[in-house]
């Protein structure tokens, strides 16, 4: 199988296809595709923290909630346009995430999990009880999205907004993981002490990855609010967290493709299983178990091993590097 050629064409055609799809879908399918793109953003964010950096942190769903609420409240109560509210949602989540990170940085594994979980519960509690700001359990309705007077309501116009944001954040994510910072994250995951000995500032790195991951979660939440038009505190609790974790684990930890694959599988599958209602929970649970039993590095991991997916090497321009090395080696050989 000439996988390299296939990869090349997929890389070239991916975005054009996504741009063209909204012309062929009905609103239901487009809504599901929008949700998939939103979960790609969320998944990338969680992958930074859980996959690359190996931090077992449970606050992602609550931070998504903060992003959703920030975006919704700025738009509905302060009449901000969405192109200001959305980045601010990311910033708000980033600030809260960094706050959570400060005590959490000292902790490992279960203690980290529990502290972040405790913060997540606290955030949810505030969303429900701080009625004067968040309107509590009544929920917040967003006004229609507008771009300089042109209404962007409806799943098809929203698709372009979401696609733009998701694509930008994906490319940003790629650059992050193939940078020194990205490699520092993996070093952190493997062995914190060795990383520190190699000169990586562990504290700073941890703080940055928490902040980055929270930013993505916030943007994901903001997009979620825009797509849904109405948010309530309920949707950002443990169930949502399990969805996030499932999607990165099934998709593949330590992999950008993994976030995309996981988002697709975990959003599309429940929709496809609509006819099997009472079995849904059982299928979902056992699928999760089976996937992990047989594919612990996720679908992306399997894909990379079999060659269906290109390798993800954490160095920029590794293809040129490889080419230069090969030509160098052949030159050496000829000498």
């Amino acid at each position, binding site marked *: 199988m000439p996988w390299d050629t296939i990869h090349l064409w997929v890389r070239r055609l991916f975005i054009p296809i996504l741009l063209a799809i909204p012309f062929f879908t009905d609103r239901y399918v487009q809504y599901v595709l929008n*949700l998939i793109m939103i979960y790609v953003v969320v998944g990338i964010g969680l992958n930074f923290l859980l996959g690359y950096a190996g931090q077992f942190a449970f606050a992602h769903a609550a931070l998504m909630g903060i992003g959703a609420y920030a975006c919704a409240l700025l738009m509905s109560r302060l009449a901000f346009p969405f192109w200001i509210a959305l980045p601010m949602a990311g910033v708000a989540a980033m600030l809260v995430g960094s706050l959570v990170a400060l005590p959490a940085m000292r902790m490992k594994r279960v203690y980290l999990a529990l502290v972040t979980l405790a913060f997540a519960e606290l955030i949810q509690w505030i969303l429900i009880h701080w009625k004067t700001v968040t309107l509590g359990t*009544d*929920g917040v309705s967003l006004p229609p999205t507008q771009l300089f007077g042109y209404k962007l309501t409806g799943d098809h116009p929203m698709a372009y907004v979401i696609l733009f944001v998701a694509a930008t954040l994906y490319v940003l994510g790629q650059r992050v993981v193939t940078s020194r910072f990205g490699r520092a994250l993996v070093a952190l995951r493997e062995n914190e002490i060795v990383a520190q000995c190699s000169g990586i500032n562990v504290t700073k790195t941890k703080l940055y990855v928490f902040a980055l991951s929270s930013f993505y979660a916030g943007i994901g939440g903001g997009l979620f609010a825009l797509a849904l038009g109405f948010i309530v505190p*309920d949707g950002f609790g443990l169930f949502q967290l399990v969805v996030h974790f499932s999607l990165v684990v099934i998709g593949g930890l330590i992999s950008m493709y993994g976030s995309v694959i996981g988002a697709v599988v975990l959003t599309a599958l429940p929709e496809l299983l609509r006819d099997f209602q009472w079995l*849904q*929970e059982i299928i979902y649970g056992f699928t999760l178990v089976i996937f992990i039993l047989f594919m612990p590095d996720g679908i992306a991991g399997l894909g990379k091993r079999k060659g269906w997916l290109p390798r993800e090497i954490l160095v920029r321009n590794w293809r040129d590097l490889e080419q230069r090395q090969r030509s160098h080696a052949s030159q050496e050989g000829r000498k």
Partner: protein
Amino acid sequence: MKSSINGIALGACLAVLALGTAQAEPGVTKDTIKLGMFGPLTGAVSIYGYPINNGAIAIYRAINDQGGIHGRKIEIVHEDGACDPAKTRAAVKKLVHRDEVFAIHGGSCSAAVVAAKPEFVENKVPMMVMAATLDAISDPPNRYVFTTTLPGSGDGVTMIKFAKTIPNAKRIAVIKHANEWAEAKAKAIYASYKEAGFELVADVVLESKANDATSQVLRLREAKPDVTMFLLYPGESAVFLRDAQKYGLGGQFLGTTAVMDLVDLAQRAGSEAAMKNVHVGAFLIGPIDSPEMKQYADIYAKYFPKDKLQSLSFYGMSGALTVIDALRRAGPNLTREKFVDALESTRDGNAGPGYCKVNFGPNKRQGCNTGTMWALRGGKIVNAGETFKSN
């Protein structure tokens, strides 16, 4: 040349055909009417989702067996919302854009229905709410959204009205969940208690799925209320009443329409003694084993013989009967707009097992606003009416 003219002709014919079929009303054919239905069919709330929707389905099947409406049988497309706003929105989108249903009868989770509301409104799909009680769904009135379920405010108003008739009752207390379902009822209470001459002496929160209400009951006990209104789900209501008995919280207890199954409540609370001073709101014409309810109980049992019969089984029936009545009055040339007009002109409609006459109007989309209070006496549920009588 020739081929391109043929192509144009073919294209024109297809366009005319397409236009022609596009103008036909979605969801209506010569012998079927496609009705969309959704509710919490999976997840923690599915315990309530199924009986409510099944009640409505039973009514529709009964009508089908009697020949349908103007020769058309009702076909139900049933989707799961899992009580999640995003998933419910997806379910409704599927019903509206994929299955192209004629109208929708569904929704028992308030927040999820509000999230999905823009779908009905923007696409002009008539929507009869199944059992969601949040007032914001049907008020301010929207042309396409109707409900025959007693809204949350109605529950609260019924409770205050009844409390007023309790002799020497001056101090009231509220125990509620911290969610929109309980808030809707609480808001009605907060809005009307002062006018009714009460003093609110305690307002406590019980989290859902709690197994112990000690701190809540002790706080209430300290405040010495004459009437405690418990805005709780069935399981937590049982826990509360049990602990109220245990710690000796006195006074009268008023519950919401969520706990109409008083025999179950007594069993879960552990004793009938716990039910001595309990009255609950009800919007059914009688207890489920009473003669008035028999015909509806039989209909449910006929189509869902293996289901347990409980008050939830009847929640959806008034909506179904109203839908059927309006479909009839809309006539054989059925369109969505005619259907909406027919619904709007419902006067003194038959609510089946519902305790009211269904009345809609040009600016009125809440069809039923009356409720009554039930109590448990001698192991049987009795309609205690709207005035308190000491036993």
